[in-house]
Structure formats: structure tokens, C-alpha cells
């Protein structure tokens, strides 16, 4: 991979910093009228999730990281690894617990997810923003209570526990926002 000079940094660029692939969350060119130019970057370590700020001098550069996001289909988990398939090439990828992390509880077989590859290895799994999952366990629904507040926990087919309105019953399929973990509607 090539090098990119700090003057060319842009939000969303992936670079190697201290040996780890990082995403540039925010890039700000800083230059007093008469002073030296710097580039102030908010970085996210793609392996650890750590977010921090690093300031680069104008003559500094960074090695671009071979990181790409690919749409894949979730196949199954064998308990240790999660398996995904690239639908065009049928190529399969296995992601470990670190890569799947919190996303694991939203993964339903056959769903489309985004896999972040670094040097062709999955380092992050992003579930779709909305998933439709079946309720496998919750207290019986309360008839008539359709509008007024109140919620109860419901266990979904993937193991995730979501707060749902009181009128929801087991066996129903619900639309969930995976970013907030909140119930949206009946599917």
C-alpha cells in the first residue's frame, strides 16, 4: 500500500497508525495565518475501537491500510467462529468474537451484513440497521394495551433481549433498530 501525506487526509480514509488499521473519523486542517500547518485527526482503531486524537505535521505521512467494507451474507456460527459468504464469488470468511463483538446478537442466518476486511481478514461485522427477528420468549401480551407506555423484556431468536410494548406475544416477528437496540414496530 502507498503512503498518503497529511495534507491529503480525508474523513473515512483508512491508515496504519502504530501498527494498527485506523479510520479517520474527522480531519481538520489547522494553520494559524503566520504559523505552521498541522492536520488534526480523530482516529478510530479498527481493531480495538479506541478513539483518540493525533496531530500530524505537514511533512508527515501515513501508510494507507488495506481495509475495505464488503457486503456479505451471514451463514452460521459454529460456536467459535461466525461464517459469512461473499454472494458474488461464494468466497467464505470466518470472523472471530473480537470482530463480531456486539453485532453477534443481531445476526440471523441469511441476513446481509457488512464485513470490514483488513488484509483480507474480517476485523469488524456491522449488522444491518434494521433486522426482523422472532420473539421466542416474553410474558403473555396484554389485549387492548396498544398505545400507552409500558414495556417488557422479550428474548429474540438470536438471543438478543429487547424492550417491547406490553401487547407483543411470543412468535411475533418484530423490526429492531440494531444501532440503538430498540423495538421499532411489528414486521
Amino acid at each position, binding site marked *: 500500500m502507498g503512503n498518503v501525506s497529511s495534507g491529503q487526509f480525508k474523513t473515512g480514509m483508512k491508515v496504519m497508525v502504530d501498527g494498527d488499521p485506523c479510520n479517520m473519523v474527522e480531519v481538520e486542517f*489547522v*494553520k*494559524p495565518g503566520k*504559523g505552521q500547518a498541522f492536520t488534526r485527526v480523530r482516529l478510530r482503531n479498527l481493531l480495538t475501537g479506541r478513539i483518540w486524537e493525533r496531530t500530524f*505535521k*505537514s511533512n*508527515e505521512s501515513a501508510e494507507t491500510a488495506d481495509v475495505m467494507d464488503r457486503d456479505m451474507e451471514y451463514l452460521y456460527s459454529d460456536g467459535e467462529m461466525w461464517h459469512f459468504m461473499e454472494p458474488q464469488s461464494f468466497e467464505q470468511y470466518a470472523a472471530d468474537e473480537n470482530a463480531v463483538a456486539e453485532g453477534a446478537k443481531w445476526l440471523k442466518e441469511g441476513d446481509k451484513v457488512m464485513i470490514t476486511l483488513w488484509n483480507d481478514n474480517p476485523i469488524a461485522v456491522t449488522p444491518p440497521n434494521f433486522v426482523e427477528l422472532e420473539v421466542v420468549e416474553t410474558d403473555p401480551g396484554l389485549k387492548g394495551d396498544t398505545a400507552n407506555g409500558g414495556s417488557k423484556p422479550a428474548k429474540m431468536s438470536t438471543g438478543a433481549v429487547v424492550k417491547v410494548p406490553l401487547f407483543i406475544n411470543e412468535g411475533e416477528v418484530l423490526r429492531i433498530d440494531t444501532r440503538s437496540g430498540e423495538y421499532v414496530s411489528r414486521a
Partner: protein
Amino acid sequence: MNNHWQPTAEILTLRERAKVLAQVRAFFAERGVMEVDTQCMSHAAVSDPFIDSLEVSYHPYPGAETQSLFLQSSPEYAMKRLLAADSGPIYQLGKAFRNGEVGRLHNPEFTILEWYRPRLSSAELMDEVQALVTAVLGEQHWERLSYRELFLRYVSLDPHAVSIEHLKTLLEPHFDMPFTDDRKDTWLELVMSHLIEPKLIEPVLVYDFPASQAALAEVKSDEHGTLVATRFELYAGGMELANGYQELRDPQEQADRLQADDQFRGQSGLPQRPLETRLVAALEAGFPNCSGVALGFDRLLMIKLGLSSIKEVIPFAFERA
């Protein structure tokens, strides 16, 4: 699908821009300050080591050997030559160019408002800066602090006495800066741009800069006996908005500073370009006691309209120019 033909500023914003351009001209007309429009392209380039000029190729006819000319990073040199020729008070509202400066607050081609006031001290010129900015932005809470007072208030240290090591320890908890630089001004500038400037929302006029940051300002002793530059800056909206001087008049000192900048460029591997020696000649001919200031017009508009990026106030910013 491709919308790259479109302006980066909304037409409504450009209407406001037109109004403020007219307002600025009216402000100076009323005060008897003459508008001038000096050259954008010159045989000489700015000496400041950290301002890179855009170089253009001139030729007498196509195919002939080209000559390098430079787009002006500010009209300062030309305006000072006019002052030496007895122009009296003058202002310029036009384009200036700085190579490589692109970002939320920077566009390589931008609109600068620069003016010079013979017989006014830099303190009196600060009054006029405040009057102009108030005319555009309306009444606000203004403050005036020396560079020392500013640092004492925001980072609890005296910038004239502090060491580079100490400045680094202020920055390190917040920012990784794994580089070295033995220029103390670099670290002062980093503290200013990273820790102080973002907090300066209401207008603050900062004066008495370290003598090492004098550029073309006179140097004097302050009440603590520290050598300071009679230079001031206006900060507002969390950014640097204007830079002014009690102008240097001594031709020898001017010549020395041009040489020192050029030498620093040589040592630092920065491009060395033709120096504006005609400015030295102009000072020799006689230059009035005078203060001058340059203000970033686009940034002033950003504050007025509450916009966060310079491209939103420029018809076609760099990426679409």
C-alpha cells in the same frame, strides 16, 4: 446525478455576502479610506516561511521560456509601497492565495480585507476593527487581553517564560503529537490552535505577541520588560479572524527580517523565492507611522451566518473551482 457544477454556497448566502461586501465598502467610504486594488500577481513572493505562494508561469508568447511569478498571499507589500508613495489611508477587499491551505477554515483562494491607517496606533486600529466587525455582526461582548493574559487565563502559564517541555505536557493528555520541533513558537501555536482558540467564541483582541512572532510588526518592551511584538489578532467564533501590526518602518530591520526568513527557508528545505526588496526601498524613501490589519472576509461571513465551513460562503470553493 453529477452535481459538481453546483455552487458550494447557497444563493441566499451569496445575497448576504453581497450585502456585507457593500457594507464594508460603505464603512470605509464614510471614514475617508481609499479603496485600492493592487496586483494579485507579482515578481516577488511573501517571505513568511510558513506561507507558501502559488507560482504561475508567465511567458511573452506561447512556447517562449517562462518566468515565475507569484500570486500574492496578501496585498501587504504592494499596499505598503502605496503608503510610502503618500497614498494616505487605504483598504483593499480582494483575493489572496495560499498554497496547500484547504480545510474547514481555509480555501487556497480567499477574500481578504486589509487596511492601513497612517498616524493610528495599533490600539486605535483595534478600535476600528471592533467598529467594523460590530457593524457586520452587531453588538457583542468584546475583550482585550495580552498574549500573556490569554495564556494565563486559559492554560495557566506565562507563554514568555514557559519551556517547550511544559507546553508539550499541556497537549499530551489530549493529543498524540509524536514529532519533534525545537521551535518554541510551534508549540505555542499548537497550544493556541488546539486548546485556546476553540474557546474564543465571543470576540477577543489579543495583543503583545512574542517578539519571535513579530512578522512585520514593531518590537517593544512590555511592562514586564519582555520583548513583545506590537502585533494583535482578533479571535471570534473559535477561529483566527484578523491580524494587525504597528508597522515596521526601519528599512534595515525590514531587510534583515526578509533575509532571516529566507535563511530559515533554506535551512528547513522550504522553497526560497524572490524577496520583495522594493519594500525595503519604499521604507528607505520614507514610510508613515502607521498601523495595518488583514481580516479574513469569508470567516467573518461564516460567523455572521452561523455556517461552519468556509466553502459554504464561497461561490465555488476549491474542490469545485
